[in-house]
């Protein structure tokens, strides 16, 4: 076969696998360095952009305010924030690299077509740390695709990399399924930026069993982790807990895939949450919602049938961001329970017991207030108010997976590390596929895109350098 011919010219200098933020940043950077780049996106054009399409903002180090970011956000604070969410489960050298290289990322992004806006209502608590994309992640991805095309990157949609040929840590070619046909694409260097594996339902089932059947995948159905698995079977070293994923509570009526941001529910701190037996199972008011929303996916996953129901009354309705599906309603708690398909007696009993346990206090959603329950388990530590103001509303909840933590180990040049710790010379990774190096657990709003942008640029630069010398 012609691939065996040493004189054969490769199809391109740098092959980029993936079509989200990390892949695009790598492709643009490599093309600017003079490399001939092919980018493979397994999704059709209308669904291009992976999970990046669903994002809203990213955070970066800045010393001065910008038109869309307040004040300054410096390395030590950034680092402390990261330590707080990961509990120290990170690789310090790589994490500090991301933080430092994120300095004034906004300028580079704008030079490549990105547009920002100051945050308005709803996300003001991020106004200093996170820069918001005008129009969200899809607008960002659109701009990057346009820039990449202008830089000469050859973009192929509906082109899925199904296997990689790696010999002694050296990438040779990718097997690509493109509109039904399979072909080989060879390159002098390869950047894999194909996301996590959260959309591979069979893989999820290997880990969580039958329960996985009831998980909602918040992002792209094309993030199947095929490239991740291939790299791991071809000798790449794994990082990150293969059994962990970032999961939040979403509306059970959400589509199986790609429901994105609108299916999340922020009502939990203002009501009670019961399982399908009508029983409460966790402190709904433990802390501010942005600090707690990410544990509720796992909590719901642990309940019978992987479902739960958030119940609130009329006075709580205006307190949280509206969500996409209307709440189920009832004039009485019993009627609401019936409409939700819950055991009426059990729910009435739970609500009555909860209402009795609520101690008077000064309700204040902006503080960890002193409205708490007494004498029930689990308690509700803040914002506890009796459900006594009809009509009553209920939202069905399910676990919604944002991303998985398993990834490929890298060095500071974005090179894939082999099991023995040696780097592959021409195989690079960026984005979700390697963010487990930095986010060992937990999550920090806007950091996924930061990792993808910084490592995308490093991977693109190093891949081009490998080719061009």
């Amino acid at each position, binding site marked *: 076969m012609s691939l065996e011919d040493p004189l054969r010219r490769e199809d391109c200098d740098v092959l980029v696998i993936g079509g989200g933020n990390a892949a695009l940043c790598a492709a643009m950077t490599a093309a600017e360095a003079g490399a001939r780049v092919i980018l493979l996106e397994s999704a059709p054009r209308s669904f291009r952009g992976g999970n990046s399409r669903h994002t809203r903002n990213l955070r970066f180090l800045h010393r001065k305010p910008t038109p869309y970011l307040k004040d300054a956000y410096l390395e030590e604070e950034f680092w402390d924030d990261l330590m707080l969410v990961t509990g120290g489960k990170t690789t310090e050298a790589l994490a500090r690299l991301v933080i430092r290289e994120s300095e004034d990322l906004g300028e580079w992004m704008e030079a490549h077509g990105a547009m920002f806006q100051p945050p308005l209502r709803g996300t003001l608590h991020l106004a200093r740390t996170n820069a*918001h994309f005008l129009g969200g992640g899809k607008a960002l991805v659109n701009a990057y695709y346009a820039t990449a095309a202008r830089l000469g990157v050859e973009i192929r949609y509906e082109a899925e990399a199904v296997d990689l040929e790696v010999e002694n840590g050296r990438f040779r070619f990718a097997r690509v399924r493109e509109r039904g046909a399979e072909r080989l694409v060879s390159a002098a260097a390869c950047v894999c930026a194909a996301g996590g594996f959260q959309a591979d339902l069979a893989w999820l089932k290997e880990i969580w069993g039958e329960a996985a059947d009831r998980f909602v995948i918040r992002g792209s159905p094309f993030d199947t982790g095929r490239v991740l698995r291939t790299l791991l079977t071809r000798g790449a070293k794994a990082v990150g807990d293969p059994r962990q994923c970032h999961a939040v509570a979403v509306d059970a009526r959400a589509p199986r895939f790609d429901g*994105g941001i609108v299916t999340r529910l922020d009502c939990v701190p203002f009501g009670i949450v019961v399982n399908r037996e009508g029983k409460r199972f966790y402190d709904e008011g433990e802390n501010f919602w942005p600090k707690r929303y990410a544990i509720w996916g796992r909590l719901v996953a642990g309940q019978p049938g992987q479902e739960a129901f958030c119940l609130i009354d009329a006075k709580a309705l205006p307190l949280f961001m509206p969500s996409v599906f209307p709440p189920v309603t009832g004039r009485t708690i019993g009627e609401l329970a019936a409409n939700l398909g819950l055991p009426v007696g059990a729910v009435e009993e739970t609500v009555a017991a909860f209402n009795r346990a609520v101690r008077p206090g000064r309700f204040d959603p902006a503080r960890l207030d002193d409205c708490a329950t007494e004498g029930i388990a689990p308690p509700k530590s803040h914002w506890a108010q009796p459900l006594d103001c009809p009509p009553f509303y209920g939202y069905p909840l399910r676990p919604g997976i944002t991303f998985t933590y398993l990834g490929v180990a890298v060095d500071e040049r974005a090179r894939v590390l082999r099991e023995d710790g040696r780097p592959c010379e021409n195989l690079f990774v960026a984005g979700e596929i390697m963010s487990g190096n930095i986010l060992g657990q937990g999550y920090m709003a806007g950091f996924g895109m930061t990792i993808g942008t910084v490592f995308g640029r490093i991977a693109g630069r190093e891949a081009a350098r490998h080719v061009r010398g």
Partner: protein
Amino acid sequence: MSADELLREAERVMTICNACRYCEGFCAVFPAMELRRTFAAEELRYLANLCHNCRGCWYACQYAPPHEFAVNVPRALAALRRTTWQEFARPKRFSGLFRRNGLAVLAAGLAAAAVFLLWGALSAESGLWAARSGAGAFYRVIPYGAMLGVFSALALGALAALAAGLFSFLRQTGTKASEFFAPGHQLRALKDVLRLTYLEGGGHGCNYPDERFRHGRRRLHHLVFYGFLAAFASTTAAAFYDHVLGLPAPYPWLSLPVLLGLGGGLAMTAGLCGLMVLKARMDHEPADEEGRGMELAFLGLLLAVNGTGLLLLFLRETAAMGVLLALHLAAVAAFFALLPYGKFVHALYRWAALVKNASEQSKAG
């Protein structure tokens, strides 16, 4: 889709957007939406008229078809907007003119042309096709008194219908007259109108005619808008010359009415042609296809007013003057007659919506 279905579709789409809010930086619609949790007909009519159709939120939408949520904000709001204009129109018996607007404009234009040509032919001293010059030359084709009478009646009628339309907008969007006529809100809305703030797409321009962000459409619209104002000023100046100074038209090249009219006419013509070219190139997916006839009719009629006006100016010393005058007057007459029943009303209701927006945003702080 029926008006009811259009309301329901707009409600569905706004509910999704309100849970998402990624587009809040593009325009005034999203911040106004964020002040609400539910969307009754009153609110949707207002939001539909607040939308400038810049299309930023179409290309940016993560839920655009083929996604199962099938969000298409520009189309949903444009289609609803079209039906609200029909609902606002007064007297109600003319509201049907919105439905087959292209045809109505064409018929009105042709009828007016026939009337004015015939009238000119009958009343002009030496027939329609003859060179005339000097003061009052136009009035030797169509007599002064009659011209004044016809156009005053048409203009007053249009004005009354627009005013009545404005009041139905206020009523049907639940807007109090007191908040609407507050000078502070009027001032802020005026600024948004004069700048076309919400075609700036947060500073980058709008996605028109395609995915790229560009300022072309806003600039062309400015040409038409300010050209229109100049032409209006020209007519006012001419009236002043005639009635106050006692100087009847036509006026010399270097006079206020001619300079304003020429500048305005050229600007409008350039702007209209540019907008037509963009429209021919635009992506159709985010467009309200049923409204296309009305939009083209409006551009076409304005172009006819300008084209005949400019030709009249250049050829007024020749024998073609009579015919051109009749055609120009016919175009102007059709324009005034259909002013309250076509795309022109977008200016009225956009302004009204911007005032309401200024009012509620100042309250929200």
